Structures are given as structure tokens and as C-alpha cells.
């Protein structure tokens, strides 16, 4: 039997209505109000403590509320944290999201909640936790609680997690491959799926894309540098140019590492074979013969001598962009940008391949 803690607001904690929305956070042993429903439904999970907090208190004094709740949980044993259901109550939804996120970060336990799709808490927190698709008002209490209890039971039994649409939670921005047979679907070949989708699209009939287009993450182009003689410029590349020994063992494909190497002594640009590419996604012949075709240090030095460019950073920054996931690329980008900031770099020549 796993132990759970349940977070609810002042209303469902039977403290009071809107007039009690400033109610300070408290923890009670055992179940309160709707928490009993959870315990009557779940077979392998039991709520042992209930945390109650007024919605206004959480909304207006969030940091304090979270700190006090986390302090209350010190020394309490629990395996799962449950919040809500919050239906379509905006403040309550946000509160459930904030508490779940804080508990997950500190304790690393599964956190689950439930909200209606119109609840702004879904948009704010769906990437951080399992938010089950719930009803829009409290009359759905039993149905929503059933979903939470069933899922908590499955976590307790160590069952394999099914895709969001089958479990009933909002997608968390995570995609994995699945064999259709593993989720109880007929193993229809992709060939038949694509032709069936084609026929449906041609006939104007409904069809379901298997890859819904995610929101586009476009970075705006930075304003132009006014005077290149007055800034420190750095060279960054995803083209895999490294010192011959590849000292940081940056991977040739699906890279998770980047390197920073001194170029202050390279007056005329990169030399071969002291520098080469380890990038597995393009023909290395030209780059190995002359690494400057990927990172144009020779041209930058020439401009420097001509006085068209001022200072060049003593280091260049490199990784491999082939097969590299967008997540890893974004992380490495943030890390490199932080170093560039520290080194007062104001302009970057970023070369891809």
C-alpha cells in the first residue's frame, strides 16, 4: 500500500467558501472532505494526510505558501502527491499546479492532479505533471477522482504508462514511439495508415494526424551590430571542428557535449591536421583539408588585420549538429551563451553545416 498526500483548497477542505479564501496552509492527519472519496476508490494507495490552503493565500503569497507546505511535509512519509480535482476553478488550478511542481522538485515523487481543459492551470503546468482531463464543475467530483485513483493504483502496481490520450492526462510535450499492439490497437502497417489518411483527406473526411504540429519556437533575429571594430566577436559552430585529439570526446552524432578551445595563437586561422572535423553528417574531406571552410577564422583574422573587426574572443566554441536533439541543442546553446556573456562577447559568427 503506497502512501499519498492530498492537496485541496479551503472549499473542498470544508473550511469555508470565498470568505475563507485567505485561509493559511495547514496539514491534517487523515482525510478531509473529498479526500475520503479517493480512499474509497483507490485499492493500492491510501491518503494519509491532507494539506488545505486558501486559494487567495496561495495566489497572493505563493512563495510563502509553498515554503510552509514543504516544511509541513518534512518527515512525513509519502509516495505519491495528489492535488484537486480543480475543475474549471482558475485560482485552484494554478494552486494545484504550483504545489505539485514544488513537491515534485523537492521529493521526486509522482504528482497528479485534474483540471478541466478550460482551466488556465493546464496551459501553465501540463509539461510539469500529469494533469487529468476533468469536468468543468464539482458535480464531476466522483468521475475525476476515479481517474486519479485508477492512475495512482497503476503507479503503485508499477504498470507501464500508456500514452496521454489513453490514460486521460494532458500531453506533457513528450513523445515516444510505441508498437500499436502494445497499446491494444490493431498493428496496422504505416503503409495502410498513410493511404487511408490520404483517402480521408481527399474526401474531406476527418482524419487524425499522428504528428500534430507543435507550437513553433522561432528565435527573433538580433539587431545588427553597428560597429564591428568596437565589439568582441566570437566564433561558434555546430560543424564539429575540434583539435585533432578531440580532447572532450564530443560525439560525432547525437552530441551532448560542446568544447571551448584557445585560438589566440592562431594568427592565420585554423591549420590542418592540427584541427579537423568529427561531424558524421557531412563529407569531411574539405573540412579536414581546411577547417576554415567550416569556422572562418582565416577570414576573421584577415579582417582583423585590415582593421574591419576589433577584438576576437580567445576561444571558439564547438559541437556537432547531426542527429542532435533540439533539447540537447537548446541546452548547449544556453550554456555557450552564458560563457559568451561572461566573456563580454557581443557578436557571434555561428556556422552550421
Amino acid at each position, binding site marked *: 500500500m503506497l502512501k499519498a498526500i492530498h492537496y485541496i483548497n479551503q472549499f473542498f477542505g470544508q473550511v469555508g467558501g470565498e470568505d475563507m479564501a485567505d485561509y493559511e496552509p495547514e496539514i491534517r492527519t487523515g482525510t478531509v472532505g473529498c479526500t475520503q472519496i479517493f480512499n474509497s476508490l483507490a485499492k493500492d494507495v491510501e491518503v494519509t494526510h491532507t494539506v488545505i490552503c486558501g486559494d487567495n493565500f496561495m495566489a497572493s503569497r505563493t512563495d510563502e505558501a509553498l515554503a510552509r507546505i514543504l516544511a509541513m511535509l518534512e518527515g512525513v512519509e509519502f509516495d505519491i502527491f495528489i492535488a484537486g480535482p480543480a475543475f474549471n476553478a482558475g485560482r485552484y488550478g494554478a494552486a494545484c499546479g504550483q504545489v505539485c511542481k514544488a513537491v515534485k522538485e523537492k521529493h521526486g515523487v509522482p504528482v497528479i492532479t485534474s483540471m478541466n481543459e478550460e482551466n488556465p492551470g493546464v496551459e501553465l503546468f501540463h509539461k510539469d505533471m500529469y494533469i487529468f482531463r476533468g469536468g468543468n464543475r464539482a458535480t464531476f467530483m466522483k468521475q475525476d477522482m476515479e481517474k486519479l485513483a485508477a492512475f495512482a493504483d497503476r503507479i503503485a502496481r508499477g504498470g507501464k*504508462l500508456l*500514452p*496521454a*490520450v489513453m490514460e486521460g492526462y494532458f*500531453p*506533457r*510535450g*513528450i*513523445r*515516444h*514511439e*510505441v*508498437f*500499436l*499492439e502494445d*497499446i491494444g490497437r490493431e*498493428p*496496422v*502497417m*504505416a*503503409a*495502410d*495508415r*498513410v*493511404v487511408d*489518411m*490520404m*483517402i480521408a*483527406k*481527399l*474526401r474531406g473526411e476527418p*482524419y487524425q*494526424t*499522428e*504528428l*500534430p*504540429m*507543435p507550437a*513553433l*519556437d522561432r528565435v527573433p533575429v538580433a539587431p545588427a551590430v553597428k560597429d564591428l571594430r568596437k565589439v568582441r566577436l566570437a566564433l561558434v559552430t555546430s560543424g564539429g571542428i575540434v583539435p585533432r585529439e578531440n580532447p572532450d*570526446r564530443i*560525439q*560525432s*552524432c*547525437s552530441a551532448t557535449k560542446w568544447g571551448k578551445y584557445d585560438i589566440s595563437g592562431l594568427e592565420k586561422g585554423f591549420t590542418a591536421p592540427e584541427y579537423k572535423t568529427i561531424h*558524421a*553528417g*557531412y*563529407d*569531411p*574531406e574539405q573540412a579536414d583539408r581546411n577547417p576554415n571552410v567550416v569556422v572562418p577564422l582565416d577570414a576573421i583574422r584577415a579582417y582583423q588585420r585590415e582593421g574591419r573587426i576589433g577584438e576576437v574572443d580567445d576561444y571558439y566554441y564547438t559541437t556537432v549538429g*547531426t*542527429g542532435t*536533439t*533540439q*533539447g*540537447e541543442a537548446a541546452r548547449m546553446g544556453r550554456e555557450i551563451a552564458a560563457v559568451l556573456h561572461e566573456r563580454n562577447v557581443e557578436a557571434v559568427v555561428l556556422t552550421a553545416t
Partner: protein
Amino acid sequence: MKLEIGKFFVKDMVFGSKTGYSRGVLTINKEEALAVVKEDSHITEADLYIVNPGDEVRMVPVKEAIEMRCKVSGGVMFPGMTNPVTPAGQGRTHALKDCSLIVVGKHWGSFQDGLIDMSGPFQRNTIYGSLKNLVLVGDTDEEFERREQQKKNRALRWAGHRLAEYVGKCVAALEPEEIETWELEPVNRRESIVQELPSVVYVLQPQTQMEAMGYNTLIYGWDGNHMLPTFMHPNELLDGAVVSGSFMPVSSKMSTYEHCNNPVVKRLMKEHGKTLNFLGIVMSNLNVAMDQKQRSAYMVAQMAKNLGADGAIVAEEGYGNPDVDYIQTIVELEKVGVKTVGISNECTGRDGASQPLVALDPAANALVSTGNVSQYFELPPMKTVLGELESMGRDGLSGGWEGCVRADGSLVMENNGMFCSDHISGFSVKTCMDY
């Protein structure tokens, strides 16, 4: 154009004194078969094995899979590659079914090579795990690329195609157990009842991004990097005019076996005259520079539009950089009013949280997903390994990394290195879903 495929269903494969086929039993004279492999003096070592579904066998580094076939009339196998350039897609071809020929490096792997398990939890990850396989394991004297991550694998790939035809020839004079007929009339000579159906093209984007020659998909022996989109009859693909290359991370690869058995093309042929008017294949390519990507996308859209296509299915053999070609082609087709559906895989990262395709566009509103290249696998040890397990971690195979192979023969890897496992040709019984 009419093509007959005469089928022989192999129930058992054995070595014996004479290469031949009788009542479901395919017998291979090993010595004679190896002589065909060694016609190329660059092959330094070669051996043959037979593996069946359920055998405790792991193969790595796998370079190619080919269906064993021969032409009986109307052309040659693999024109422009192992045989002179000759029109393909007509006459009679005999094929050994339920089996394939797998080409494995005895020691050395490359970026595009992969792994096949014949039993255990990962048997189902590639269709070759459920076929009876004749396995050629060999080494070569191609010293120039022995330590290179990118290998042309020419000697072994060509040997595989010669061998596939040699074995295939043993059924040349026999009566097939079943005959499949593939026929499409010229696009403007079809009955009005067919013309009235919605017209569809299949746009194939095979992997052609290596600018050096010798790595890319071959079309009649011609390197796909050096061509512009063109129009092909589906029979040409089904009859061996297209041969797989040696470049793409392997879960995204379409082997020559898959080109010859492309299930999307076969399904479109079956729908032809019933629900659809299948115009044919727009054979495109995948490119490196942006203007090349755009040129191909514009030309594909123009060709589809002026052939009268109402719909198009676009298949991308690859992921990452070529997603740009894939999405751009879908966008250009939609712009000219051709309703388009795409089929390819995704790269969402081990945690599943990365953007699934490099390029995105709201016009790509109908996509079939065949797998995630970065899905993380832990494989138990396997009794027998054909090839060299260490290659997965040592030679830069796209799904492996230094240290991924353990001393006990178990390994961790990404789907990226599982042979043809995303089956973008259409065999995939996987999809990707939100979690």
C-alpha cells in the same frame, strides 16, 4: 506497363550440393555461392549462414537487405548497378518470398550500419527478424575507408546484389506458386471511370545527401545526388531500379528489399481503379544546400500539379537535416492545391521532449509517424553474434557510442542503430504518441 512477380514461398532454407528450390525448400550450394561473392577481388573473407526467426542470433554491423530474385523476361536485376542499364518494370520477375539476404560486415561497421535480433524482445523491431535469412558475412580490402565512419561498403553491397540474383536464378525455370501482376496504363490513356477518381502520386525522397559519390541511393545505377526529381512508373521501383545507399542512420534507411516490396506503392496499386487513380511515382531526392532543397520541392510540386494529382504521399528516407526537404515539399504541394500526407519518423530525444522534426509547418497537417530514432534500448546478451558486436560502440554506428557494448554481450543503444527499424517504406507497425 505490366510486371509479373512470380512468387516462391520459402519454408526452409538449407545448404546442400546443388542450389535449387523444391516444394518450399531453398537449397544453397555454399561453395558456388561464395564464388559469386568472391568474383570481386576486394572481398578478402566471406562466409554464409542461415538464420531463422527464433534463433538466438544477433547480426551487426548489417549493411543491406535484399530480396533474392531474378528476371525471367523483360530486363535484368538491379540495372545500372550489378548489371547493364536496361529498362526495369516489365516482363516477369521471380522472387523468393518470406526470406531475404542480409549483408553483414565481418568486423567493420559504419555510420549507416545496424543491428538485427532474430529472437528476444527486439526481434520484432525489424521485419528481418521474422524472415528466414541467408546471411553473407564478409570483409574487404577497402583500406581507404576501414577506419572511416562513413563507408561506401561497395564491395560487400555489390556482392550482396550479385548473390541475391545468383540464388534467385534457381527458380528462373520453375512455375511460380503465385503470380502477382502490377499494371498501370499511361496516365492519359486510362478509362474515364478511372480518370474520375481522385488522382494521387507517391513522392519518394530517398537518401542522397552525400556530395561524394558512392554513398547515395542509386536509380538505374545513377547517384541520386546528381539528379532532379523525375517521374517513374511504380513497376520500376518494384523491379529493382532503385538500390539503397550507404549513408543514412539506419533506423531511417530503406533497404533494397524494401524498395522492391514498398508497401505504400503496393497499396496504392491495389486502390487504383477502385478508390484512387494512381498516377505514379515522383522520384525526388534529399539535398544539402537550401537552394537544392527548394529546387526539388518546386519541381515535385510542379510535376504533381501538371500530372493532374489531387493528392500526394511524401516519404522521407531520413531525419534531421532532410526534414527540411520533407516539410518544404509538403508545403509546396499544398500551395499548388495538392492535398498531401507525409510518412517518416521523428527524433524526439531519449526523454521524448525534443522537437520531433527539424522543420515544422502548419501545412503539414497529415503525417504518419513510423518511430523515434532516439528511443533508448537495453538489449540482453545473445548466444551467437554474426559480425562483430564491438562495432556498435567502436565504429561510429549512428545508434551506438563508445562503451555501449558490455563485456557480457548485452548493450545499450538508440533505435537509430536498429536496422531499418522505422520502416519508412511503410512496414512500420509503430507510431509516436504524446505522453
